[in-house]
């Protein structure tokens, strides 16, 4: 049922656009402190970049860009980064997620700034990984005939 025409334009455009989307997504994640954006928005864009190539090149060919088996582990790693930031500050004497207790140098606002950065990275990874994983899972479960 899934007849795929190897359309040069579609594949070329999506392949070219995808890295630029990713770069912009990284900008959105890491510049989230100073401009609209943040982990969730950036993570969604990363996932969009991956899914774009998956749509254009088919799910087999796109494995070269981002293997299916990486998606869920990366997403879990993102959640673990988030949880780990909170837990480290808990171990260092504060309440859960109290970044002021993170073992870095500088005054507490700086700690919080860094803590927010870690969290945004974790959120971005988790959203990217798991949205891609859901897309892959849905495609696998799709009835083929």
């Amino acid at each position, binding site marked *: 049922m899934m007849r795929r025409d190897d359309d040069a334009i579609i594949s070329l455009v999506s392949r070219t656009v995808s890295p630029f989307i990713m770069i912009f997504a990284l900008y959105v994640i890491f510049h*989230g*402190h*100073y401009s609209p954006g943040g982990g*969730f928005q950036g993570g969604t864009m990363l996932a969009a970049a991956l899914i774009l190539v998956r749509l254009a090149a088919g799910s087999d060919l796109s494995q070269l860009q981002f293997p299916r088996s990486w998606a869920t582990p990366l997403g879990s790693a993102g959640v673990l980064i988030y949880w780990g930031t909170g837990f480290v500050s808990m171990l260092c004497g504060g309440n859960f*997620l109290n970044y002021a207790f993170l073992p870095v140098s500088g005054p507490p*606002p700086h700690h919080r700034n860094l803590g*927010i950065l870690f*969290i945004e990275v974790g959120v971005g990874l988790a959203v990217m*990984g798991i949205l891609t994983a859901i897309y892959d899972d849905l495609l*696998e479960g799709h009835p083929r005939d």
Partner: protein
Amino acid sequence: MKAVNYAVLALFGAVLILGGLSLPDRGDPTAPLNRDKSAAGTPNAPSYYIRNPERDADTPNMVTVVLADYRGFDTMGEETVILTAGLICFLILRRERTKEKRR
């Protein structure tokens, strides 16, 4: 059954309109949402979130600070939600794949 559905729908709409009538104007500076102190004298969270993020976290983007710091636990819940969804899609759809292979 269909009549009941439409009755529920009409009731829902009526309740929404009734509730909407007594909501404060959008952007009204005297609305409870936008005051500095709540009626009980406790600090009002939205005003606090506008005034203090730069002092507390050295970050001008208020939404980022609220998301990741003041209400960071919500965001961890959000991560957990999406992790759950990923695991469940894996759980539900994986079986289909193995069955197909066996055939």
